[in-house]
């Protein structure tokens, strides 16, 4: 079976080619059902193949293997194959991408029904899955970069999917360009790695970086540059600003790309090259700091949003912050575990939010919702489970993963540390905003939009929701085959010491958040204009709502100077030098032609003057 691993990304790619190619040969759009069958079917088959290969892989003792499709680049000392490296980590990612991806494809088949771009939608989505699969399967960084940029393109295409609204195009552009800033750092990182190690093969680099005596300066530089790529793709500080705007795309896209899979690529990259990061204490600290700061500031922003999708977007940034935090403290498997559980419950939340939005005729403002629990039972159930997982209430999947992160952070720092404190505070904040969302949408009085609620869930939409509910609840019981991958992780080597103080705090934090949310909801503090006169409402909330002013700062510091400068120099200042030479010659031309008067007397006189001048020269010299 393992030899067929190449078919895993190929199947969705074939789906893409069929769907995109259909437009070349037919004037009419192909039927929606056919598009959905090709789109969802190709990913479903890939998921099936992954399941079969995964079973064989585990039966063989989780032995990593490599499959080369063909030699891709081979010139001047650079060798990079279209080669796939499969180990426990890759398999986990494959499972998430094809499994959750398939469910979201199914849901989309119902959600997008009636849209003009139905076929186009599925073609983009299939291309995305294919690129994402290549990203996690690549055995060298060049191929990984191919998948990396490929998912970025699909993200661009899907954010700008409804192209008739120019604002969507702007949001898509922002996402692409901001992530490309990170990608460029990553590309430079690849240059550093290639120069130093003479290869882009990930396992070779890992082997050499993990060996004693590696140049710590090079490791730090390379790791930080890769981190630059990771923060861009995973929307971490300081490149997080694109993700809230990326919500312009269709909601299932937000579930698949901007929650479950693509945005976790940064986490995957760092986990994949973890020996390189471990070789540099500074880089590890940087990862942990980025994660802890991001999880906290994004959590605070989620607390004050009014758009249902923006709340989820900020919570995604925040949860990926937890993953980075985990990576930074060496809790590699806990970070990946959180990636998996987050994929389940965040996909669930986004899809459920999609149902709400569709049922309320594209209303996204939570203050116009409320009291929906009776009108949309399946969605309500999904939201309850999703929010419980997000808040990490005990015995949900989110609890197991987040608990492990906080515990290992405590151990890593050997006690109380400000980053751990941020993580714990973040857990309380998460509890508050999760239940604020749940309470405002499904409890309380009916808002203006709720009155027109018309449950849009069809079987093809509620089916995936229910499956995801199960996964989100039970996902904590999964054992991921990561022991062979993260050999330095104390959780894998059985050296994990459980500190009971930290454990109790980690369990208590979300419960405190829940209590605060319930109390505040009862007091009416969550209402639209509540507290608008207080210092919090006037100063803090708008600042948080606008993402702590990052957008405004970038606009003032980068965007406007750049466009201003570009506008000033539109006609190319270099050209003015050449235009100047034209003017000089024209002036000279006019002066000289003025001497051509046509008068004989003038010519005779100048001739005499010239002769005298020459004679004088001769006489003097």
């Amino acid at each position, binding site marked *: 079976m393992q030899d067929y691993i190449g078919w895993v990304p190929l199947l969705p790619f074939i789906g893409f080619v069929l769907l995109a190619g259909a437009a070349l040969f037919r004037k009419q759009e192909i039927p929606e059902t056919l598009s959905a069958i090709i789109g969802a079917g190709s990913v479903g088959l890939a998921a099936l193949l992954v399941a079969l290969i995964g079973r064989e892989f585990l039966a063989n003792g989780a032995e990593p293997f490599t499959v080369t499709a063909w030699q891709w680049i081979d010139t*001047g000392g650079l060798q990079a194959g279209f080669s796939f490296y499969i180990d426990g980590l890759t398999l986990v990612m494959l499972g998430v991408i094809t499994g959750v991806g398939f469910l979201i494809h199914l849901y989309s088949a119902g959600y997008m029904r009636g849209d003009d771009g139905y076929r186009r939608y599925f073609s983009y989505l299939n291309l995305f899955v294919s690129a994402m699969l290549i990203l996690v399967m690549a055995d060298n960084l060049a191929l990984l970069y191919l998948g990396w940029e490929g998912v970025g393109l699909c993200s661009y295409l899907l954010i700008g999917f409804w192209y008739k609204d120019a604002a969507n195009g702007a949001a898509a552009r922002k996402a*692409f360009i901001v992530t490309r800033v990170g990608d460029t750092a990553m590309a*430079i990182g690849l240059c550093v790695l*290639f120069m130093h190690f003479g290869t882009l093969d990930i396992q070779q680099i890992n082997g050499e970086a993990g060996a004693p005596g590696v140049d710590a300066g090079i490791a730090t530089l390379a790791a930080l540059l890769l981190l630059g790529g990771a923060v861009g793709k995973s929307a971490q500080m300081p490149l997080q600003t694109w993700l809230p705007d990326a919500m312009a795309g269709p909601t299932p896209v937000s579930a698949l790309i901007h929650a479950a899979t693509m945005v976790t690529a940064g986490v995957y990259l760092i986990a994949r090259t973890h020996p390189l990061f471990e070789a540099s204490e500074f880089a590890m600290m940087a990862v942990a700091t980025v994660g802890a700061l991001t999880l906290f500031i994004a959590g605070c922003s989620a607390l004050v949003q009014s758009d249902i999708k923006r709340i989820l977007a900020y919570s995604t940034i925040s949860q990926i912050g937890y993953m980075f935090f985990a990576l930074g403290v060496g809790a590699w498997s806990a970070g990946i575990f959180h990636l998996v559980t987050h994929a389940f419950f965040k996909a669930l939340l986004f899809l459920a939010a999609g149902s709400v939005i569709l049922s309320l005729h594209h209303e996204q403002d939570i203050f116009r919702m409320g009291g929906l629990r009776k009108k949309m039972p399946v969605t309500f159930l999904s939201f309850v489970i999703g929010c419980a997982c997000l808040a990490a209430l005990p015995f949900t999947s989110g609890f197991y993963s987040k608990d492990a992160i906080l515990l290992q952070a405590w151990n890593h720092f050997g006690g109380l540390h400000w980053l751990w404190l941020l993580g714990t505070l973040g857990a309380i904040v998460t509890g508050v905003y999760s239940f604020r969302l749940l309470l405002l949408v499904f409890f309380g009085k009916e808002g203006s939009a709720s009155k027109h609620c018309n449950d849009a869930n069809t079987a093809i939409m509620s089916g995936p929701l229910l499956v995801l509910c199960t996964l989100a609840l039970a996902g904590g019981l999964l054992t991921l085959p990561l022991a062979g991958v993260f050999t330095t992780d104390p959780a894998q080597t059985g050296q994990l010491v459980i500190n009971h103080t930290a454990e109790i705090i980690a369990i208590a934090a979300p419960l405190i958040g829940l209590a605060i949310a319930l109390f505040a909801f009862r007091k009416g503090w969550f209402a639209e204009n509540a507290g608008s006169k207080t210092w919090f409402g006037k100063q803090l909330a708008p600042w948080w709502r606008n993402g702590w002013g990052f957008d405004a700062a970038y606009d003032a510091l980068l965007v406007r100077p750049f466009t201003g400068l570009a506008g000033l120099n539109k006609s190319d200042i270099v050209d003015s030098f050449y235009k100047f030479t034209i003017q000089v010659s024209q002036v000279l031309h006019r002066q000289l032609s003025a001497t051509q008067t046509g008068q004989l007397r003038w010519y005779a006189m100048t001739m005499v003057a010239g002769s005298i001048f020459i004679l004088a020269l001769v006489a003097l010299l």
Partner: protein
Amino acid sequence: MIQISIISILFAGGVLAWLSEQFRPDGSRWVSLASIVACLLLLMNFNGNVSAALSGTSVAAQAQWWELVSAEWIPRFGVNLILGLDGLSYLLILLTLLLGIAGVLASWKEIHDRVGFFHFNYLWTLAGIVGVFTALDLFLFFFFWEVMLIPMLFLIAIWGHGNRIYAAIKFFIFTQASSLLMLFAIVALVYFNYQNTGVVTFDYRQLLDHGLAPTTAFWLMLGFFIAFAVKLPAVPLHTWLPDAHTQAPTAGSIILAAILLKTGAYGLIRFMLPIFPEASAAFAPVAMAIGAISILYGAKLAFAQSDMKRLVAYSSVSHMGFVLLGIFALNTLAIQGAIMQMIAHGLSTAGLFALVGMIQERIHTREMDRMGGLWIKAPRMAAIALFFAVASLGLPGLGNFIAEFTVLLGAFPTNRLATVLAAIGLIGAAVYALIMMQKVFFGKTRDQQADEPQAFADVTPRESVPLLAMALLLVALGLLPKLVFNLSAPSAETIAQAAQSVLPSSRLADTGATPALRQWP
């Protein structure tokens, strides 16, 4: 003989196309299409060499020249007709002919006036270009260099848009002034070589052992460099390009951007580096800096433009910066990348110019501020434009990415600062390529188009087939870059070895500032 046949067919085809206008209005178009296709078929003759190269026959086992023709021309001055063909020339001639076809098709409906003369000039330009790519005698090289210039001048001056005379004269003066420098350098080189060896010859292979003093060699190298840098173009010698590209008819823009610019890069690779390895190595830091500046400056100016064609033109400045950077990194990987960039940029830019031409034909403007919402009207055109835009911004999986990626990886050890700056150009490329998509295709249809009587038609097969073919080629290059790399490997490796023998530090062992800097005269 193939080189001579191709050049002759193009010359003769040009004359025939001019004459056939008399008999049938469409005659010239078909004649010129037929001549280019005939040349393409002739080129198939080299399938054996191509498959040998692709199957990975080692570089040493391949003969350097697939075909070499040599005949006397002016024996008194040592001028000979020497035309050689190797993998590098083969690739560039193939590119010339393929895009030549694309150009004929793109101008099928655009050119109504003096169709015969148009195709005469068009084919003679192509003939000159093929000559440049094969000539191994410097005198002959210069001859073809001029042959491709004059008909191009007519293409712009006669069939161009608005400000065409200004653009044509500017193009002419820039190229002519710089090629004068090259002529001086060629003559001086031959003269000094005569002084040293007692042989008068323009044969490039004999001139390799000229034994010039380093200072002399440096100045002569500069003469070549300026001529090639103008063609490339490199900042600050680039300002002829936006005007010429913008004003030229679509076919002219395609030829200019996709092929003519490559003659500059080809000259650097074929003549300048091998003849003056030491001087080039000494000059490399400056040239790489110019390359990096071109990348960033071109990207920024591309972003600032509101004329769609000007945007594409400035993007060429940016992309050709990668070629300069790669060539002067003086190692196989980067030079291979530069050659790949020549091919991939040729295809992607030709695609973009063809698209601008189609839009201009339909709504008679190139101002992007007056466009918008074209996706609704022409979804297929939007899809094709999207493809070429992302090719232009270097999306992996397409040829342009392979080129830029290998240039960056290869150039980094030689000159880190320039490479990092060049990498930042990748962001710039995303900025200008996507703003173009945004302004032209996203959003709602603007009012200004509502007054256009005819609806905006989507692409016809005549328009889309060449574009799809180019798109497929870009995908092929992106997934199987050996299609180019294996063919150009002998040239790239020979040059890199010559340069490395001058530069003591090897690529991976390079540790500090380039030692070449100290050899500055």
